[in-house]
């Protein structure tokens, strides 16, 4: 019933031949029929439809409707952000598409066309090899969700947010929307109105999940918006590594991805959240991510942004408890026609809290990388530390990079350090590598991999290999 379409053929424009070249792996789609479709455009009925399909409790339905009002009332943040946001046509987007609300527990039960998609992306294979659990979201809902028995026996809850709301409302409601309130920004409000899918994780006190849990977000439909909502709670002294990957086929029209991710690390807990995003060059990726770190806990975001048309994402940590630690490691690669507007927010709200931000960006061709950082340390605290380092690499003479650090430190009992550098791959360097037999593309790729090498080494092996592969593909296509 389904035909495979190589979506390249849909794109007639050749004005930007290199952007999106990295989608070699993700650039395919199978034609689908959806049993549930909220239609095109956004109004109260869209929200009613989503809520009804999910058979939600009245409080969450009301939460959504209020969020919709907030969304409509908030202006786009174009006074500081890219005007490209104005090109998002909210009336042309489809807000909910699914084949059902209950994910399958085995790959055999997953509908053939969806299963084929995830097999082609290598998800079932990764699951067998090194993961403690996988959730695979296809457009609006998870098609597959499974956690290894050994992990669930420890009391770890891992499911999609639709199920989480239904099965664990007592935990869900307590933390949901508390780290990132609806009105945080226009897109967190949008997500709060129409969210669907995303992960819900609870790790009980003292449980250290030995292998990563992974979610994979796949956009398949054209003119579609994906609005997953992830909520992770690590109870006292527990530890978790969560990884997410994402792809979409390349369409000639814009696609919107606008997620909200909230993390809560209770006393002494450790959360490591790794993203390797590989969106196609038509995707607006506008994501709000924030963690709340209680006493002596640690939240670490590792955020790799490759692809997309415009990414705006500033993972943050609110350091609420004494001696809490926050870290953001951000890698962004902006190819021709792409704008990676990324960074970090570190809000110190307790004594002796520590935060670290390391950002490396690469701009290729007319690609633009922007770093925005907020570090906030108020006067009444003591012994807070922040270290920020942002390095930019420019590949071409017309590449662009900007850095906007906003550091507010009051009082004299803190230590803050900010370092920034901009470097360029020189023609001599490329000649040197070419003289050793590497093509120009391979030479660029090696320079870029060298530039981020010290960060990539901190990733789990499988992800650093994947990141290197994506950079190779991206750089191969950027020359010639």
């Amino acid at each position, binding site marked *: 019933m389904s035909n495979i379409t190589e979506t390249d053929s849909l794109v007639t424009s050749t004005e930007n031949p290199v952007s999106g070249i990295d989608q070699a792996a993700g650039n395919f789609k199978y034609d689908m029929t959806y049993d549930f479709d909220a239609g095109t455009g956004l109004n109260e009925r869209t929200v009613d439809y989503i809520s009804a399909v999910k058979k939600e409790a009245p409080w969450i339905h009301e939460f959504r409707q209020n969020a919709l009002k907030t969304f409509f009332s908030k202006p786009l943040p174009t006074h500081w952000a890219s005007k490209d946001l104005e090109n998002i046509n909210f009336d042309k987007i489809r807000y909910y598409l699914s084949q059902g609300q209950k994910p399958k527990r085995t790959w055999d039960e997953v509908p053939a066309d969806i299963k084929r998609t995830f097999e082609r992306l290598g998800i079932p294979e990764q699951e067998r090899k090194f993961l403690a659990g996988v959730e695979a979201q296809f457009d609006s809902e998870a098609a597959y969700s499974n956690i290894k028995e050994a992990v669930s026996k420890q009391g770890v809850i891992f499911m999609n947010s639709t199920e989480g709301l239904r099965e664990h409302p007592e935990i869900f409601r307590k933390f949901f929307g508390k780290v990132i309130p609806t009105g945080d920004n226009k897109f967190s409000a949008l997500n709060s109105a129409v969210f669907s899918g995303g992960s819900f994780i609870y790790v009980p006190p003292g449980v250290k999940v030995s292998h990563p849990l992974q979610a994979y977000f796949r956009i398949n439909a054209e003119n579609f918006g994906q609005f997953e909502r992830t909520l992770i709670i690590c109870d006292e002294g527990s530890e978790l590594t969560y990884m997410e990957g994402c792809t979409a086929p390349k369409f000639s029209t814009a696609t919107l991805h606008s997620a909200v991710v909230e993390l809560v690390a209770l006393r002494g807990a450790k959360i490591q959240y790794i993203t390797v995003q590989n969106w196609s060059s038509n995707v607006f990726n506008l994501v709000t991510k924030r963690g709340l770190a209680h006493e002596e806990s640690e939240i670490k975001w590792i955020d790799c942004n490759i692809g997309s048309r415009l990414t705006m994402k500033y993972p943050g940590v609110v350091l609420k408890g004494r001696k809490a630690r926050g870290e953001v490691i951000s890698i962004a690669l902006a190819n021709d026609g792409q704008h990676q507007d990324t960074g970090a927010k570190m809000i110190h709200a307790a004594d002796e809290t520590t935060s670290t931000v390391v950002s490396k960006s690469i701009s290729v061709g007319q690609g633009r990388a922007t770093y925005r950082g907020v570090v906030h340390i108020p006067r009444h605290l003591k012994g807070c530390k922040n270290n920020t380092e942002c390095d930019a690499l420019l590949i071409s003479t017309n590449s662009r990079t900007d850095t906007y650090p906003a550091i507010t430190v009051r009082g004299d009992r803190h230590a803050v350090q900010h370092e920034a550098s901009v470097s360029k791959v020189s023609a001599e360097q490329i000649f040197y590598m070419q003289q050793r037999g590497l093509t120009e593309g391979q030479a660029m790729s090696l320079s870029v991999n060298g*530039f981020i090498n010290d960060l990539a080494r901190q990733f789990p092996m499988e992800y650093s290999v994947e990141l290197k592969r994506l950079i190779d593909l991206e750089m191969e296509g950027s020359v010639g």
Partner: protein
Amino acid sequence: MSSLEIRNLHVSTGDKEIVKGVNLSINTGEIHAVMGPNGTGKSTLAKAIAGHPDYVITEGDVLIDGKSILEMETDERSRLGIFLAFQYPSEIPGVSIANFLRAAIQARMAEGEEVDASGFYKRLYQKMDLLKIDRKFTSRSVNEGFSGGEKKRSEILQMAMLEPRFALMDETDSGLDIDALKIVADGVNQLRGPNLGILLITHYQRLLGYIIPDFVHVMIDGRIVKSGDKSLALELESRGYDWVKKEFAHA
């Protein structure tokens, strides 16, 4: 046996002609030293053969085994067997020597083939032992923070691993103290053999005390004005370049 033939080569950079008609033929197994004062076009000759984009060949040809290489990209020329040992090698931050060499060897393999990691390291360590290079060296980023001697040793190691047919060694002796010079010369002597032709560009005779060339050429003002055997180098050492210049002016 392979041959590298340089025919009436003219090279310009910007509007300025630097190399003004060089003829030179090198066979594998031979070492040719090109000597001459600063600014006579020796380095330009080497870079132009390697395909540096800043150097434009306005006339003449460069052939390997009778086939012109001038239409080839720098990397194609490299894979064909031309190696340039740089006078000032570039730094590649974050890329270890081992990974750099691995990428260079990978680039020489057919599509779908992968470098065998254990075989690669075995060969790498063999070459390093041969060149008396410490094993820790390979995990350092290429040329980053290297001393002058380390940079040159890294060039020789790369040459050993890539096994070119023709090595163009551009002022390999510059900036080296006598101990470093000996180590580098030892390395070159280890690698010399019937399958390698070397074009040794040097300003000073002292390197030729350690690497004995088969032929010596004197380059002045973009041309090779005198050729001979190793005794020519000794003559230059004792008499300087002025007499050759005079001879050349008269000719």
